[in-house]
């Protein structure tokens, strides 16, 4: 198959390792601090925005592909990248448009699939 031949196996390996390391950082935060998972998600996304904003994160993405974009750091970096790109196109207004525009697909998918799942799935009954 042409597709299998087009896969960059070294990139897959780098993706696996970098993605894994980012998750280890999260795991250490869970085990060593008493942060709730909501706070950890917020920390990751905000850190991603900062790293994306100062332009470091794009080197991680170049190196590891989805190993960098799939973790929430990448979600944050994408927000920042979107804001910066849109500012270049339409000035200050772009700061308010760009972030959400760039990550609209993910946010909308989560809301839509969440709603569909809630229609289909039954809530688990909590044992008291």
């Amino acid at each position: 198959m042409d597709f299998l031949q087009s896969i960059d196996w070294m990139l897959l390996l780098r993706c696996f390792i970098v993605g894994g390391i980012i998750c280890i950082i999260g795991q250490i935060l869970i085990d060593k601090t008493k942060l709730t998972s909501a706070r950890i998600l917020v920390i990751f996304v905000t850190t991603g925005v900062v790293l994306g904003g100062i332009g470091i994160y794009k080197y991680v993405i170049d190196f590891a592909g989805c190993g960098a974009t799939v973790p929430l750091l990448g979600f944050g970096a994408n927000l920042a990248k979107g804001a910066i790109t849109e500012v270049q196109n339409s000035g200050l207004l772009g700061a308010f448009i760009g972030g959400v525009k760039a990550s609209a697909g993910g946010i909308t998918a989560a809301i839509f699939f969440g709603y569909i799942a809630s229609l289909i799935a039954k809530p688990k009954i909590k044992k008291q």
Partner: protein
Amino acid sequence: MKKIETKQEYQEYVDKKSPNSPILKNCFNAFWVGGLICTIGQIIFDFCEYKGFDETTCSTIVSIVLIGIAAMLTGLNIFNKIGKFAGAGSLVPITGFANSIVSPAIEYKSEGYVMGVGGKMFTVAGPVLVFGISASVLVGIIATFLV
């Protein structure tokens, strides 16, 4: 068994029951599950690129597909089990964000579709979006002055 009444007693009980937090094992599980989720994303990305989509579109497709899978697994109650095993391995990738939306949506279904599903959906994802988007606006404003 002694009855647990205060929060502190509960904490002591928990500490007693889980004496040595197996942090190395947790990190190992988080590493390979998290890495695997990213690798699945990369394979989807490569496939989209192979089909001739541009990079931004590919990233968006990866996010949507992974979120869709995570939503489905959450609905089937499989994601919980993966989460217990992998910890941050399934929380930190975009699947964790999806799970944080889908899980309360299902949980609070009994409170109605508007305030239950619609409202509680954002218990965890709300703060993520508030801080993420606000930070991106700040980045955009700073960028305006630098461009």
